[in-house]
């Protein structure tokens, strides 16, 4: 019975609730029960907030029962949502996956939390992540790694690994992720779900613990494209509390899909760019053929495929690993043991700083040191300033390419989800983001959705990159692919451990 509930999409759940078929309490209890049961093996949630969730659910049920117009209850009324544990939400601890913030209670709500709560969503708990979102495998979480529902010996990806695993295993229908260099798209690819990193500035960053301010962007992680479009519509929009937020009119992506692909069944007139520059060395045969199949599918749908050049993309990783650590080293200075989080018991100020900050894990310490180094006097010009110039060139590459096409298609990752411990060399780990990082540097919107499986049954992600503020075109393009593959799409088999 409860699986009949948890297998529904967010849009279906909202319909079930507003039609009276299911109460919000029933929905919430079904997901809480499943999450509690499966989390023992998956470790997707760092914390659940059943009291908060049930309180919100009951309130919605009361409002519906007393005759409130279901439309006024919000577009996500009755739909549970998981919140990446980097996002502040009153009534929960916000740990950023770090020992240094263990036990830190949020004192305010992030703007995106307020937005979904106002739209009637029911927050279920806080999702696991790499410490301070620094990692591609969830292995850097201080709360132990989250596991991939498709194969528990494999990573769910990172940093939003808790979000992708929870959605994939249907512990929640919707989840927030954040993406600084691929942290939404890479785990979405590894877990076979849909993840969108919106245009930089589309979604408010207020209340989201910063990793690299000029690259961070929160976005929706969902089972399918339409749920994704709905959640982005709710969570995006101008916020006066975030000076980098863009002031553009709200868009209804579902209407756009309805008026386009759903109406015509074709992508005629759409130009899809592919580029040898946005590819990885020594690509596995299976990955290559999954991409080829996707290209064929798009050709069958009437789209035109054009080859584009992105000559500076090869410098992306180097550029990213200067800018992101530089900003991170600064953003993480506030975790000093003075006002909140872990404080070491010491006799003087200097050892208070030093000992409190050793609570950071190895990867976080590595990036703080890297960032501190590249901003040091005498090195700033050679590293940080140079990296900003390269960033500009990468942005220009995309601008030039988008004169010839509407979206760019590539694989999301060079391989499918790897085994725990497989990438002990940090550089090797960084390479798993080689296809996603350039998009963050350019600030463009980009999503990952499932485009097939390898011979071991692991999902393969397809990445679509759009023009700035071109989310609606991305959604229409992604929806067309999803509908073409719908018969082949699978869910992870959880009976082995459930």
């Amino acid at each position: 019975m409860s699986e009949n509930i948890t297998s529904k999409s967010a849009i279906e759940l909202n319909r079930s609730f507003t039609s009276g078929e299911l109460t919000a309490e029933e929905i919430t209890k079904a997901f809480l029960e499943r999450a509690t049961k499966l989390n023992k093996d998956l470790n997707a949630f760092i914390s659940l907030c059943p009291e908060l969730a049930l309180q919100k659910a009951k309130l919605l049920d009361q409002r519906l029962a007393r005759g409130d117009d279901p439309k006024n209850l919000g577009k996500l009324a009755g739909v549970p949502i998981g919140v990446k544990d980097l996002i502040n939400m009153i009534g929960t601890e916000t740990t950023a996956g770090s020992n240094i913030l263990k036990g830190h209670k949020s004192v305010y709500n992030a703007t995106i939390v307020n937005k979904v709560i106002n739209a009637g969503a029911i927050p279920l708990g806080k999702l696991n992540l790499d410490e301070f979102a620094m990692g591609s495998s969830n292995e850097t979480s201080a709360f132990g790694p989250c596991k991939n529902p498709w194969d528990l010996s494999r990573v769910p990806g990172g940093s939003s690994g808790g979000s992708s695993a929870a959605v994939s295993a249907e512990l929640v229908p919707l989840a927030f992720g954040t993406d600084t260099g691929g942290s939404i798209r890479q785990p979405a690819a590894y877990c076979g779900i849909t993840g969108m990193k919106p245009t930089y500035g589309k979604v408010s960053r207020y209340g989201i613990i910063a990793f690299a301010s000029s690259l961070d962007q929160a976005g929706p992680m969902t089972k399918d494209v339409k749920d994704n479009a709905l959640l982005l519509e709710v969570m995006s929009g101008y916020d006066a509390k975030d000076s980098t937020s863009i002031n553009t009119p709200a868009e209804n992506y579902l209407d756009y899909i309805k008026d386009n692909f759903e109406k015509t069944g074709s992508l005629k007139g759409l130009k899809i760019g592919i580029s040898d520059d946005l590819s990885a060395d020594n690509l596995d045969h299976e990955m290559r053929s999954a991409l080829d199949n996707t290209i064929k599918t798009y050709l069958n749908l009437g789209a035109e495929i054009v080859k584009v050049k992105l000559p500076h993309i090869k410098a992306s990783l180097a550029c990213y690993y200067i800018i992101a650590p530089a900003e991170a080293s600064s953003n993480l200075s506030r975790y000093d043991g003075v006002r909140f989080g872990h404080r070491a018991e010491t006799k003087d100020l200097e050892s208070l700083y030093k000992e409190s900050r050793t609570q950071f894990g190895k990867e976080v310490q590595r990036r703080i040191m890297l960032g501190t180094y590249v901003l040091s006097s005498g090195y700033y010009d050679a590293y940080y300033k140079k990296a900003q110039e390269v960033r500009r060139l990468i942005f220009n590459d995309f601008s030039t390419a988008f004169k010839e096409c509407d979206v760019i298609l590539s694989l999301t990752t060079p391989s499918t989800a790897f085994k725990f411990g497989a990438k002990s060399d940090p550089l090797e780990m960084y390479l798993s983001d080689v296809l996603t990082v350039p998009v963050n540097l350019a600030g463009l919107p980009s999503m990952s959705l499932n485009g097939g499986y390898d011979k071991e049954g692991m999902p393969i992600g397809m990445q679509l990159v759009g023009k700035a503020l071109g989310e609606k075109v991305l959604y229409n393009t992604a929806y067309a692919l999803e509908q073409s593959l719908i018969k082949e799409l699978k869910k992870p088999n959880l009976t082995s451990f459930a």
Partner: protein
Amino acid sequence: MLKSSLMTTQTKYQMVIGLEVHAQLKTETKLFCSCSTKFGAKPNQNTCPICMGYPGVLPVLNKKVVEFATKAGLALNCKIDPNCKFDRKQYFYPDLPKGYQISQFDKPICSNGKLKIFDKDIGIVRIHIEEDAGKLVHNSDNSADRLHGSDYSLVDLNRAGTPLIEIVSAPDIRSGEEAVAYVKELRKILMALDVCDGNMQEGSLRCDINISLNKAGEEYGTRAEIKNVNSFRSITRAIEYEFKRQSQLLDSGEKIVQETRLFEENSGKTFSMRSKEDSHDYRYFPEPDLVPLNIDLDFITKTKEELPELPSQKRLRYVAEFSISEEAATIISDDFALAALFEGTIILGADSVKVANWLTGSVSAYLNANETSINETKLTAENLNEMINLIQDGTISDNIAKTSIINTLLEKGGSTITIVEKEGLAQIADPAKIEAIITDIIKANPTQAEQFKQGNIKIKGFFVGQVMKITQGKAAPQLVNDCLDKLLS
């Protein structure tokens, strides 16, 4: 001994001084959040997640700060950079919640200005906007008022995030006198613009001094930076001390170390805080949470047109327009409230020189003695004008106004004529009355009357004094004079 060595070195070395003045801007709310900037609140009362640097918060620029900084820049003849930006200055200290201060590094809002003192231009290199840090309160049983000697320290973040402008002068200052004059003039300007309250005791205006010594014609020497100089007297003392210290070192053939020194008010000495080698690497980089500013050029033009008259301009105008002395014009124009009262009283018809005399004489004396400002008193243009008119038409004497009226007007306000009637202070201007009084005095003092008649003119003062004593100062002075001459000759 010390004095004589100072005398010789004074001729040997010249001092080169540059000042960094931090002025707190008079906005209602902080630079990047909506917390109050009010002084004197309970510790940590004026704080929020943003100014406490909680995880996930973001800064939003207070537009008023840009307006105030633009005003200050234009008044100091600076160029305004409409596309300036913010940077992060990074260091660890418990009063700095984020571990970095949001400031402006390579693109400050104002640059290339100047300020005139003693007919000499002092260059203004730059003015930039930045946020203030909080305050540490060190507690200790062994009474050492320093972080490392304390048993524990408390952090008060009320001041964290309040807006400051840092005004950096060129090394154009050559003496303590010039340094004080520069800061005084700067303070007057910021107060006239109404962008800073100028309260040095509360830390609204603070000063760091860069000072080096060299021999005339030689290159500038190595400088020391003196922090925490928070009054005009401290500026003078810190510079005097530093000049003495550096010249003694140079005399004995030693080198000056480039370092940051702390001025300690109790001893009047400066102490080394940290040398250049220990100085922070601030790792400045552009603040990614804020976008570069885009100040409207029309706004800059409009602000320039609407700048209020500055104290120096006012001073020149007062001399030219109201024919008052330069000294009086300086006293009045230095205090914009006093200046407003001055002009207000003249508009009502009072004679400008007389108004100036009152304001620079009895009124200033009262303000100084009571350590208050004109706005705190009850004196208005209306009652000052009335008092001056009553002197003019002979209703009261100048003397009575000085001794019995002006202080009442300052303390209680009200109308002079009411005071005069109530207290019976009207001038005795009836010659018959005065003559009768003088006749009585001559009778009672025949010896003195005889002396006067024999040509001892000095004795006249005795008689005037007697008349004033009997009339309680109300006798019209000229009339007393005339009557004495008549009756004693």
